[in-house]
C-alpha cells in the first residue's frame, strides 16, 4: 500500500472492515435467499428476487474489493 499508515486508516484495519462487511452481507444473503425460497409465494418477481439481490450484492462486494486494492 503506498500511503503511510495512520492508526485509523491503516491497510490492516481497512482489510478487517472489508472482511467483516463481506461476511455480514454474505450471511445476510444466505438468510434472505433461504427466506425467499421458503415464503416467496411464487410469481415472476418473487422468483427473480434472489437472483437480482445476489447479483447486486456481488457487484457491490467486487466494487468494495477493487476500491480497497486501489487505496
Amino acid at each position, binding site marked *: 500500500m503506498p500511503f503511510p499508515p*495512520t492508526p485509523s*486508516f491503516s491497510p490492516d484495519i481497512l482489510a478487517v472492515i472489508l472482511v467483516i462487511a463481506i461476511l455480514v*452481507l454474505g450471511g445476510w444473503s444466505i438468510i434472505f435467499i433461504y427466506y425467499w425460497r421458503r415464503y416467496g409465494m411464487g410469481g415472476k418477481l418473487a422468483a427473480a428476487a434472489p437472483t437480482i439481490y445476489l447479483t447486486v450484492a456481488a457487484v*457491490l462486494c467486487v466494487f*468494495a474489493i477493487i476500491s480497497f486494492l*486501489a487505496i
Partner: protein
Amino acid sequence: MVKLEGGERIVHIARRHWFLFVSESGALALFALLPAALFLIPHPISVAIFAKQNIGANLLPLLVFFWSLWLMFLWALFALMWTDFYLDVWVITNHRVIDIEQAGLFNRKISSFRFDQIQDATVKISGLLATLIKFGTVELRTASNESFKFKGVADPTVLKERIMSEHHRVQSLRMKP
C-alpha cells in the same frame, strides 16, 4: 407459502400500494447519494482536514471504499424493505381471508378468518394523494370482536368489494336449504 384447503382458490391478493414502497426506497436512494456531499466541501478545506489524517493523497479511493461499504449496508436494508412490502399481503380465497403480516425477516404472523365471521368492513382513505392514487386502510371486524387492519393497501375499495362479494356469496349459500 400459503397452504390452501381442498377446493379453495385464490380470488385476490392485496398488497400495500407501490407508491409507499417507492417513497421509502427513494429515501434510501438519497442516503446512498449522501456521501457525494463530501465532494461539495471546498477543496482547500477538505485538503486541510484530510491532510491531518495523513490521507490527502488517498482521499478518493478511501471515499469510494467507504461508499461501497455504505451501499452494501443500504442494499441489505432495501432487501429487508422489499421483503416487508412483497410478503405483507392479504390473500382472499373463495373460503376465507388470510392475513400475512411480515415485519422484517423471521417475523411473520399469519391469521385467517372465514367470510361468515365478518361483521363489518370499513375503508378509510385520507388525504389528497391517497385519494388520487388510491391507497388507504381496510379494516375488518369479526364476530369474535377481532379487528384486522391493512394500512396503505392499494385499491382499498376494490379489496373491500371483493371481500364483501365473497361474504355475500357465502351467506347466500348458507341460506339455501
